[in-house]
């Protein structure tokens, strides 16, 4: 499957991902700037904040409770904000497009 990250400088990068990984891990392994994942994917640090493209919001599901609480206080949060450590890659998400917010 492929995922496209729109970076803070407005350029885009499309990378290949195996299903079954956290989107944050895909970003870190592909050196996507602005996604750090300092806590290793425990929704404890909010350093992997992304905006999910509108057409992918249903497929990526709802925020988890923990994620919701973290995002409630995170700077720059929008309706389509997610912590990318709480999105798991799958074939259904092939073509997923997100924007990197940066922390």
């Amino acid at each position, binding site marked *: 499957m492929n995922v496209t990250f729109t970076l803070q400088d407005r350029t885009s990068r499309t990378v290949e991902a195996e299903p079954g*990984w956290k989107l944050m*891990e895909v970003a*870190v*392994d*592909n*050196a996507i*700037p602005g996604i*750090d994942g*300092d*806590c*290793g994917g*425990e*929704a*404890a*640090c*909010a350093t992997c904040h992304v905006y999910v493209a509108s057409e992918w919001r249903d497929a990526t599901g709802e925020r988890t409770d*923990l994620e919701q*609480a*973290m995002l*409630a*206080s*995170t*700077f720059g949060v929008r309706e389509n904000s997610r912590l990318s450590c709480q999105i798991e890659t799958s074939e259904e998400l092939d073509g997923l497009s997100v924007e990197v917010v940066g922390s």
Partner: protein
Amino acid sequence: MTPASVVIVGAGAGGAQAAASLRQGGFEGSISLVHGEPGLPYQRPPLSKAYLLGRLEARKLLLRQEHWYAKQRVDLVLDRAVAIDRAGHQVHLAGGPSLSYDHLILATGSRNRELPVPGAHLDGVIGMRTRADADELAGRIREGVEVVVAGAGFIGLEFAAVAAAHGAAVHVLELADRPMARAVSEPTAQFIRRAHEEWGVRFDFGQALTAIDGEGRVTGVETGDGRRLPADLVVYGIGVVPDTVLAEEAGLAIENGIRVDDRLLTSDPDISAIGDAASFPSAHTGGRVRLESVQNAVDQARHVAARLMGTSIGYDALPWFWSDQGDLKIQIAGLAEVTDSAVEVAVPEPRATCVLRYRGDRLVAVETVNRPGDHVLARRILAGTGGPSPEEASAPSFDLTRWHEAYGLAPTG
């Protein structure tokens, strides 16, 4: 001037982040990352949490997948650094040829403080530091196993929670009068203690482990007040010591770790030190500190990378910490000292707490359990200017979010 070659010794969170940040910052020179353990560099925090619970497969423990190193042109050197030749700008390795550097980053981390008691060498006495330690422990935790944990700090309590969840009988010995005494205030410590007791963990505070009994393998421990507790397994987490051997032998200044200035430079301008091993002047306490956390390691790594690329000022990132114990997500923003006062904020959830720490009237840290929103907000407040006064925080209706909405200044970052 940007160096042409960087050698990083130590491939924990900090070392790996330094390599990543150099490339993200546009560094085009060579990067060698020296990793002295078997296999690819991995994350340590999950070892005492999800990995030990069997909820994290081994490849997901890795800091970066294998393809990352080639794509980012990071030469992963699976070897042990044994000496630094400062005059010749070389790092000597145990096995392979020496590595030349223009700039050297020491990210050597820390080692477990060993148990200074008879019997510490027995089979079944295990510190929690490496993946090998976690693998060994995972194989030994079963229902009914008698476990003695020495030290009620982060690691000891994370392990205690996992062992209790596996049905082991867990007994924690701690010298201080409460758990996590160095890290959190009395109210937070007592909240954590009660949760562990609900999971069946027994505590003995103010109690030293004085000897470990057994022939070949551990059968029990002896306590300072003369009792003998049965034990199939003894796990110790009594603090760490910074790994300064390389730096010390190379003649670098040492002061509770490798001494660095506010730019994280050692006494040699061609050598930086980051993470658990480095003691630095803290912008938040005004004193010299050495912190053992992922946040500290990765933020310092980013700082050094930015400085080498010519785009950085003094290091001043706000420290934060987290620990997962059972269903408790413990998060600490800022840096409190034992003498700082504590104001407990009333929260509606029964399994949550929020404690504000003050030095005089100044908010210096916020401890939360299962209040991740407060934690994120606290990080923003502490990184900015001014927080709620102790009087405001003491009001029965105080709420950090409402306070921030009413009085919080716009965040600077």
